[in-house]
C-alpha cells in the first residue's frame, strides 16, 4: 500500500512538473514540425485548410527547377559566409580594444551592444532611412561616392547593405561573449608567453585563439545560424529586392506560402531549409570543437 502510494506520488510530481512544459512544447513545436513531413508532399494552399491533396514528389521536383529557390540559397550562403567573418573579426577586435584599460570602456560596451536590444525589424527600418535619406544627404554634402550609391536599389549594394546592418547588430553581442572569454584567461600564461619572446601575432595565434576557442565555437554557431535564418532584416530593409536578388531562404519560404499561397510547396522548402541549417551548424560546431584546448 505504502509502496503503491509512493509510486502514485511520484507520478503526480512527474505530471505536475514536466506536464505543462511538455504540453506546450509538443503542441507548438513538435506537432507542427512532424506535420511538415506530410504537408510537404501535398498541394496544400493554406486557405482551404482541409483540402490538402497528396501529390507525392511533385513539390520536390518543382523545387529542383525553381531558380528562385536556388538563387535564394546561393544568396543566403554568400551572406552567411561574409557576415559571419566580418562580424566575428570586428567583435574580436572590439573585445581586445575594450579589454585595455580605457577610461570610457563601460560606456563603449553599452554602445556597441545597444543595436542588439532592438528587434531586427525595427533595425531594418532605421537603416532604410539611413540608406535612402541619410546617406543621400551626406553624399550631397561631401561628394564621397560611398554615400551616393543607390544603397537598396541594386542587387550588389543591397547585399552589402544587409551585411552592414547585420554586422552592426551582431558584433556587440559577440563582443560581450569574447570579452567574457578573454577575461577568463589566466594572466600568468600571457606573461609567460611574453617572457618567452612571443610577438603580438604569435601571442594572438598561439595563446589567445586556442584559449578562447570555446567562445569562438559559440560565436560562430550563433552568427552562422542567425545569418542563415535572416528574415526580419530582409523583410524591413529590402523585401528581397530589387526583384528577388536579395531574397534570403527564410524570406523565400515566407513569400512562397503567404504571398503565393503555396503552403505545400513552402513546407517542402522549409524542410530543406531545416536540413541545410542543421548540416551547416552541426558541421561548424564539430570542426571548431575539435580545436578547443583547456588551459
Amino acid at each position, binding site marked *: 500500500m505504502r509502496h503503491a502510494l509512493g509510486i502514485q506520488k511520484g507520478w503526480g510530481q512527474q505530471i505536475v512538473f514536466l506536464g505543462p512544459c*511538455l504540453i506546450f512544447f509538443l503542441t507548438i513545436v513538435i506537432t507542427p514540425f512532424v*506535420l511538415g513531413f506530410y504537408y510537404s508532399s501535398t498541394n496544400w494552399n493554406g486557405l482551404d485548410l482541409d483540402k490538402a491533396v497528396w501529390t507525392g514528389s511533385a513539390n520536390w521536383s518543382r523545387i529542383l527547377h525553381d531558380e528562385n529557390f536556388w538563387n535564394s540559397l546561393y544568396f543566403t550562403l554568400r551572406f552567411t559566409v561574409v557576415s559571419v567573418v566580418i562580424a566575428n573579426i570586428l567583435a574580436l577586435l572590439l573585445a581586445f580594444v575594450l579589454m585595455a584599460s580605457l577610461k570610457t570602456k563601460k560606456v563603449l560596451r553599452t554602445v556597441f551592444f545597444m543595436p542588439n536590444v532592438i528587434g531586427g525589424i525595427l533595425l531594418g527600418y532605421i537603416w*532604410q532611412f539611413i540608406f535612402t535619406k541619410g546617406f543621400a544627404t551626406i553624399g550631397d554634402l561631401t561628394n564621397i561616392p560611398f554615400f551616393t550609391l543607390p544603397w537598396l536599389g541594386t542587387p550588389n549594394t543591397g547585399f552589402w547593405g544587409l551585411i552592414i546592418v547585420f554586422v552592426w547588430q551582431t558584433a556587440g553581442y559577440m563582443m560581450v561573449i569574447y570579452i567574457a572569454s578573454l577575461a577568463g584567461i589566466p594572466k600568468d600564461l600571457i606573461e609567460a608567453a611574453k617572457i618567452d619572446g612571443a610577438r603580438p601575432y604569435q601571442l594572438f595565434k598561439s595563446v589567445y585563439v586556442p584559449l578562447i576557442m570555446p567562445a569562438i565555437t559559440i560565436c560562430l554557431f550563433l552568427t552562422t*545560424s542567425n545569418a542563415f535564418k535572416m528574415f526580419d532584416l530582409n523583410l524591413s530593409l529590402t523585401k528581397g529586392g530589387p526583384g528577388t536578388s536579395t531574397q534570403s531562404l527564410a524570406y523565400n519560404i515566407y513569400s512562397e506560402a503567404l504571398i503565393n499561397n503555396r503552403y505545400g510547396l513552402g513546407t517542402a522548402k522549409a524542410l530543406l*531549409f531545416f536540413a541545410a*541549417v542543421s548540416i551547416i551548424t552541426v558541421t561548424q560546431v564539430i570542426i571548431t570543437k575539435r580545436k578547443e584546448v583547456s588551459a
Partner: protein
Amino acid sequence: MKVSTYKSNTFILEIFAVLLAVLFLAPFYLVLTNSVKTLKEILLDAASFPQLFHWSNYSDVWKVIDFPQAFMNSLQITAFSVVFIVLFSSMAAYQIVRRPSKFNSFVFLLLISAMIIPFQSLMLQLVRVTSLLELRGELYGIVACYLGFGMPLSVFLFHGFIKTVPLELEEAARVDGSNPYGVFFRIVFPLLMPIMVTVVILNTLWIWNDYLLPVLIIGGNKDLTTLPLAVTKFFGQYTKKWDLALAGLIMAITPILLFFLILQKYIVEGVTAGSVKG
C-alpha cells in the same frame, strides 16, 4: 599605478574606440533628430540639426497607432509569456535533473535537439495547428506559442544550473516534513535566482522584439497588435511619411532601450551566461 599604465598607446586606442562608437550611434542620432522635423525638412536636408522641434509628429503617431494600446499588448504578451516560461521550464528542468529516468532523459534530448529547428520550418503548420485549437487571434494563444518556443533554451539553462545545486538542502527540508512541491517552491526555486535573471532577460528581448510570430498568430486581431507590428504600418518600400515613420520608430524602440539601460549590467551578464551555456 593605474595612471602609469595609461600610456599614449592606450590613448590612441581610446580615441579609435570612441570614434567607432560614434559611428555606431550615428544611425540612432539621425533617426532621432529627423523625427522632430517636418517632412519637408527631412526631404530637403536629413543631416542638419532640426531648426524647430516639431513634436506634433509624436502626438500624431500616438493617436494613429494607438500607442498605449500597442504598448500594453506588447507588455502583456511579454510578461505573461516570460512568467510562465520561467515557472514551467524551471519545474521541468528540476524534474529532469532530480529524476533522470530514461523517459526524462529522452525529453531533455528532444528539447535540446529542437533548438536547431528554424522557425520558418514549422510556421506554416503552426498556423494550421493554432487555428484548429482556436488559439489564433487570442492573447492566450500567442502566449501559448511563446511558451512552446521558449521552453527548450530555458529548460536547458535551468538544467545546467540545477545540476550545481547541492542536494543536502532539499534532503533537510524533506526530513523536516516538507512535500516535494514545498521543497521545490520554498527551497529550490529561490536558489535559481541567478539563472532566472538570464532566462527572463533572454526571453524578454526576444519576445518583445518578435515580429513574424505575432503576424501569423494575431495578424487578424487588431486589438492585440504589438509595437513592432504597429510601426510596420508606416514603412513600405517607398516610405512617404518619413516624419511619422521616424517618430513611430523612436516610440517603438524607447521602451526596450530604457529596459536595457536600466538593467544593462544584468543584461550583459545574462547574455554571457546564456551563450556560454547554449
